[in-house]
C-alpha cells in the first residue's frame, strides 16, 4: 500500500515527505545531505542566491531532479515577499515559493496576515505557494481559499529544536485542512519528533537546523528520512487507540452484562 503513497503538491507527485532547508549548511555538504535524505524539495533563501558567482550558490549544489523552493526570507511585508518571489522566478528558480514574512526578528515568528496577502497575489500569478504560518486554523482556511498549495505551520520557533510544541494546534489543522497538505516547518529537532509529527497525520516535514547543526549532517539526514518514513507508515497503518488506564479485572460497567442476562 505504501508503494502508492504519494504527496501531491502543485501537480508534482512526491515520494519523499521530507523537505530540507539549506540556510544553515555549508554548500559542500548539500549533495550528501540531499542524497541521504532522499528529499525531492529543497528550500533556498533568495537573499543568499548569488547571481554573479554561480559557484558560490547553494543552487549549484542541488541535483536537477530536486525541486528548488525559493523562500522569501527577509521579507517584512506582503509586497516584499511578492517581489522576492518574482525575482526568484525571473532568476530561473521555478514557480514554487515558500512565503516567509517575518516582522519579528527576535523570534522569527511569521506574520500570518501579510502571508495571506502575499499568497493570494502569488497564487493568482500561477505560483505554487507554500506559506509558513503560525498554526492557526482560521488563517489556514483563508490560505486554502486563496489558493495556497500547502500550509506550513511551525512546530516551535525557528532554530529552537524544541519539537512539536504546537502539537494540539497542528492536530486541529490535520483534522480540518483536508484539501491541501499540512507540512510542519520549524522546530523539529530530532528524528523522533519528525516521526511523531508524521504519526499525527501531517503530510510532510521540513527540517533545516536539526540537520545542519548535527555532528554528522549526512548521517542525520538519513536518520530523518527513516523517521519520516516510519512515522508515515505508522499513520497509514492506523495506530491502535492508546489508553491511560489498564483494563480492570472487574470492569465498572460489568453490571450491564448482568442486566442483559
Amino acid at each position, binding site marked *: 500500500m505504501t508503494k502508492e503513497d504519494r504527496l501531491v503538491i502543485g501537480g508534482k507527485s512526491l515520494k519523499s515527505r521530507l523537505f530540507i532547508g539549506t*540556510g544553515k*549548511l555549508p554548500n559542500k555538504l548539500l549533495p550528501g545531505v540531499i542524497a541521504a535524505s532522499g528529499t525531492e524539495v529543497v528550500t533556498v533563501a533568495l537573499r543568499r542566491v548569488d547571481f554573479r558567482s554561480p559557484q558560490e550558490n547553494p543552487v549549484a549544489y542541488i541535483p536537477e531532479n530536486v525541486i528548488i523552493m525559493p523562500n522569501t526570507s527577509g521579507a517584512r511585508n506582503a509586497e516584499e515577499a511578492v517581489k522576492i518571489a518574482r525575482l526568484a522566478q525571473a532568476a530561473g528558480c521555478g514557480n514554487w515559493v515558500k512565503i516567509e514574512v517575518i516582522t519579528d526578528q527576535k523570534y522569527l515568528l511569521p506574520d500570518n496576515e501579510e502571508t495571506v496577502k502575499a499568497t493570494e497575489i502569488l497564487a493568482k500569478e500561477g505560483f505554487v505557494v507554500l506559506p509558513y504560518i503560525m498554526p492557526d486554523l482560521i488563517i489556514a482556511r483563508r490560505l486554502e481559499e486563496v489558493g495556497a498549495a500547502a500550509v506550513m505551520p511551525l512546530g516551535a520557533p525557528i532554530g529552537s529544536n524544541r519539537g512539536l510544541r504546537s502539537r494540539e494546534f497542528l492536530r486541529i489543522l490535520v483534522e480540518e485542512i483536508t484539501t491541501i497538505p499540512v507540512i510542519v516547518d520549524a522546530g523539529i529537532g530530532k528524528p523522533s519528533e519528525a516521526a511523531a509529527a508524521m504519526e499525527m497525520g501531517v503530510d510532510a516535514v521540513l527540517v533545516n537546523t536539526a540537520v545542519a*547543526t548535527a555532528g554528522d549532517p549526512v548521517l542525520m539526514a538519513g536518520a530523518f528520512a527513516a523517521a519520516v518514513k516510519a512515522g508515515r507508515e505508522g499513520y497509514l497503518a492506523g495506530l491502535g487507540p492508546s489508553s491511560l488506564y489498564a483494563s480492570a479485572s472487574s470492569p465498572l460497567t460489568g453490571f450491564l452484562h448482568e442486566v442483559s442476562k
Partner: protein
Amino acid sequence: MSFWEELRAYKDFDFDGFLRRTSPEDVRRVLGGESRAPLDFLTLLAPAAAGCLEEMARRAQDITRRNFGNVILLYTPLYLANHCVNHCRYCSFNAGHRIERRQLSMDEIREEAEAIAGLGFQDLLVLTGESRSVTPISYLEEALGVLKGYFPALGLEIYPLTTDEYRRLIEAGADYLTIYQEVYNPQVYAYMHPRGPKRDYFFRLDAPERAAASGMRGVTIGALLGLDDWRRETFFTGLHAAYLQRKFPQVEVGVSVPRVRPNVGGFIPPVSVDDRELTQIILALRFFLPRAGISVSTRERPWLRDHLLRLGVTRISAASVTAVGGHARPEVGTEQFQPADNRTVEEIKAAIIACGYQPVFKDWHRLW
C-alpha cells in the same frame, strides 16, 4: 522615550559590588537557565565568568549555530572621504590631524566599486567622516546611486542623521546602518569628543532608533572597546540592542565589538581589553542576544578571528582598506586605523571553510 531613560536607571547601581559578589556558581546558574534579564547578562561579564569561558563558549556556539547555522557573512568597507570636523581623540581622521584629506569623485567611486565587486563582495559598508559641507546628504545620495549598481546590499557608517535624512538615504539605496556610540559613559564621551558636532551625546545615542524608525532594514551598534570600563560598556551595548529589538521588532539588530587600534596621533586607550576579555564580551553578548548578528572587523588579527568564528560571530570584514580610494590605488592616503588582518579574500574564505563554515557574500538582495 529614548534608550537614555533605560541607561539612566543604572545611574546609582552598584556595578562594582555586583561584579565583585558574582560567583562562578552564579555564572553557571545563568548559563544553565533560560532567563535573559539584564543582570543575568551582567553576571556573564563579571570577573568570575572569566573562569567559565569554556562553558560559556559551548553555550554560545550552540545558540549561534541554531540561530545562524554554520555560515559567516563577508563584507568590506569603502571609505568615501576622510574630511572630518570632529576631534575624536582615538581617530586618525581627527580634524586636528595634518593628514592628506581626500574625497572620492563619482568616477573614483565607480572605480573602487569595480575593484571591490571584482573581489566577490556583494555587501558593502560605506563610510565617511563627519563633514556636512564636504560630504552632505546629496553627495551620499549620489554615491549610493552609483554603488547600488554594484552591490545588492549597502550599509552606511556615517555621522548621525535626522529621520528625514535617513529616509532620503534609504530611498537612495541604503539597507543597513552601523553607528557606534563609542562610549556610553557620558563623562568619558565628553572627554573623548572635545570639539565638533559629535559632542552631542544624545543625538548620537538616538541615531540607531531614528534609522530604525525611518525604515532601515538593520542597525548595528557598539562601543569602542578601550575607552572606558569594558564590562559596563558592553552591558550598555547589550541593553541598547535589546531596547532596539523590543521597540523595532522588524529591524535586524546587530552588535560589533571594535577594539581601539593604532592610529595617527598615537592615542593610547585608557583601558586595555585583552583577547580573553574580548572573547568573554562576545560570549556574553551572544547569550543575552541570541538573534543578534555579531561583527568582528579586521581590527583583529587572523589567529583570533579564526577562533572567534566558532563562538558567536556571524559577520566579518575582509580585505579592508581603511584609506580613501585605497582599493583601486593602494598607494594613496592615510588609514583610519591599521587593520590587523591583511589576508586576501581567498585566504579568509579558505580559513572559514577550514573551520567547517560556509563563507557567504550575500545575505540580502535589494528589492527596489
